[in-house]
């Protein structure tokens, strides 16, 4: 277990290093110098200011020095300086993290609490009308763009209540907080619930074909016991992995949903930074997202070890 943990942590660092390299060079493909773009966006060019800024950003340095400077800063929590709010980017990002985290958490909760039971039902009732209906619903969940779902919810709310739900940044009660996050979380969660459901279904079907299921039936176990005790316990393992992968998948949904519902979260901040061409912040934000995703996957791997008695990670 310990050896595996060390190896897994090492691989994680390698991956993060790779990601940092990719991000760093990707944002330097940008035609023209970042400073030129910043100034072009600002609309004026003062050579002295430009030289100052170049120095401040360290663009006059060799690439390796620039990279080390960036990563060093990132590790110390120096996420750059937002030119729009004129504050250090970290100050912009920190208050946004709990917003996005709550949204993501609630979406994952929806995804698991709806996706897993429906997936099991669909597999157990394989080939019936119910299975067909559930499969169509899950496929449509994968087909509706989540931003459109958000827009539809807004349209419906206008049609029914005459107004759009407005994001409440300071909910007073627990219920208010839930109401604030539930609708956008449902818009994001629909898609991942659909994915969870499909994975649960195919994982269940795979398990239901196994010999030990036949053994359980041969013992005289009822369908319910076979499906929920024997099959689900085995089928849930791949589902855990997928929910981990969904953490990454969810971020795409969060980006558009935070934009549609006008929620001041981290994901929308990335879009804004890209639109302002605030590349230092984009670079740090993407790196931050990558760290979160990689840690989520790591956590899931560890969870897997807890749930599956066969895996003790001895190698």
């Amino acid at each position: 277990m310990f050896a595996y943990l060390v190896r897994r942590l090492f691989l994680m660092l390698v991956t993060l290093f790779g990601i940092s390299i990719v991000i760093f060079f990707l944002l330097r493909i940008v035609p023209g110098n970042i400073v030129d773009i910043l100034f072009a966006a600002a609309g004026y060019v003062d050579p002295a200011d430009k030289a100052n800024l170049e120095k401040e950003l360290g663009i006059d340095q060799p690439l390796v020095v620039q990279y080390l400077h960036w990563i060093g800063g990132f590790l110390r929590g120096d996420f750059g300086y937002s030119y729009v709010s004129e504050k250090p980017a970290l100050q912009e990002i920190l208050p946004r993290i709990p917003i996005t985290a709550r949204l993501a958490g609630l979406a994952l909760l929806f995804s698991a609490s709806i996706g897993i039971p429906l997936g099991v039902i669909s597999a157990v009732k394989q080939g019936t009308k119910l299975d067909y209906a559930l499969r169509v619903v899950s496929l449509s969940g994968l087909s509706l763009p989540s931003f459109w779902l958000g827009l539809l919810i807004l349209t419906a709310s206008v049609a029914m209540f005459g107004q759009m739900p407005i994001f409440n940044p300071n909910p007073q009660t627990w219920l208010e907080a839930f109401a604030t996050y539930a609708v956008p979380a449902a818009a994001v969660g629909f898609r991942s619930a659909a994915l969870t459901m499909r994975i649960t279904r195919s994982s269940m079907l795979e398990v239901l074909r196994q010999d030990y299921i036949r053994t359980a039936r041969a013992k005289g176990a009822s369908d319910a016991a076979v499906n929920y005790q024997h099959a689900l316990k085995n089928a849930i393992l791949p589902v855990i992995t997928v929910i981990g992968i969904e953490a990454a998948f969810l971020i795409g949904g969060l980006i558009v949903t935070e934009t549609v519902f006008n929620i001041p979260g981290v994901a929308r901040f990335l879009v804004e930074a890209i639109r302002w061409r605030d590349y230092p912040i984009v670079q740090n934000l993407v790196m931050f997202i990558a760290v979160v995703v990689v840690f989520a996957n790591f956590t899931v791997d560890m969870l897997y070890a807890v749930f599956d008695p066969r895996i003790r990670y001895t190698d």
Partner: protein
Amino acid sequence: MAAIDYDLELKRAGAGATGGWRRALFLAQRHVLGAAGLIIMIVFALTAIFANVLARFDPLTVDAAHALARPSALHWMGTDSFGRDVFSRIIHGARISLAVGIGSTTLGASIGVIVGLTSGYLSGWVDLVFQRVSDVLQALPLLVLALVMTAALGPSLPNVIIAIAIPLIPTVARVIRANTLALREQPFVEAAKSIGMSEVRIALRHVLPNTLAPLIVLATAQLGSTILTEASLSFLGLGIPEPYPSWGRMLSESAAEYVRTAPWLVIFPGIAISLAVFGTNLFGDALRDILDPRQRG
């Protein structure tokens, strides 16, 4: 014991459905949803091809006098804030979605096949490097990667295609690699080797054709997701630039303002995206059931 209708049971199991057309008809009957998906895909492709004939107005012509017109006999789906006909823009938008869908899937899948075959075949350090690079690419959410890439490359159709194709490469390559590794152990590959066939020839003649089924299944499954990613990118204003009628762009945030005043601007493009993606997903699902017996339920 209940009476059993043997003919009915056999028909349900597909007995007698051999031959090309009869087999296809049987499959269509068994996979009704898949057949529906195929029809949607065909309609979608025909719309894109014959957009010029089908559209009632030029999708780019601005007509300020008729801005934000409600759906009517003239403008079936109304007009947008520039007075452009929404129906015609949706018809032409099919071209962009089709171009992006086919373009990035083909690009991503072809590079993925080459990378996967090479990596599965050469093993050693090439494989190791591939594994780490794909770890890196897969750790970044698809949309984030595509966003950063279009931001870096600049918004244009080819750049969007590239930006969406790149995250696809490791997904395809992983499947092909796994298949290649499994196939290399197969007796017929051993046999080909023993009669002195070259590795490249074995890879192209024996291994590649045998990975075709999972490749087709995967590519179809990805088609819908590429269309969705393009829509998301364009929705965020970082995909296909104005004035081209991309469905996602038509829904771009300004649509949030029209939710109140012009819901047709929200509803119709969304239906177009959802339907196109739904069609490919339905078809992809049926295809997987048919071609991938391991997954067959």
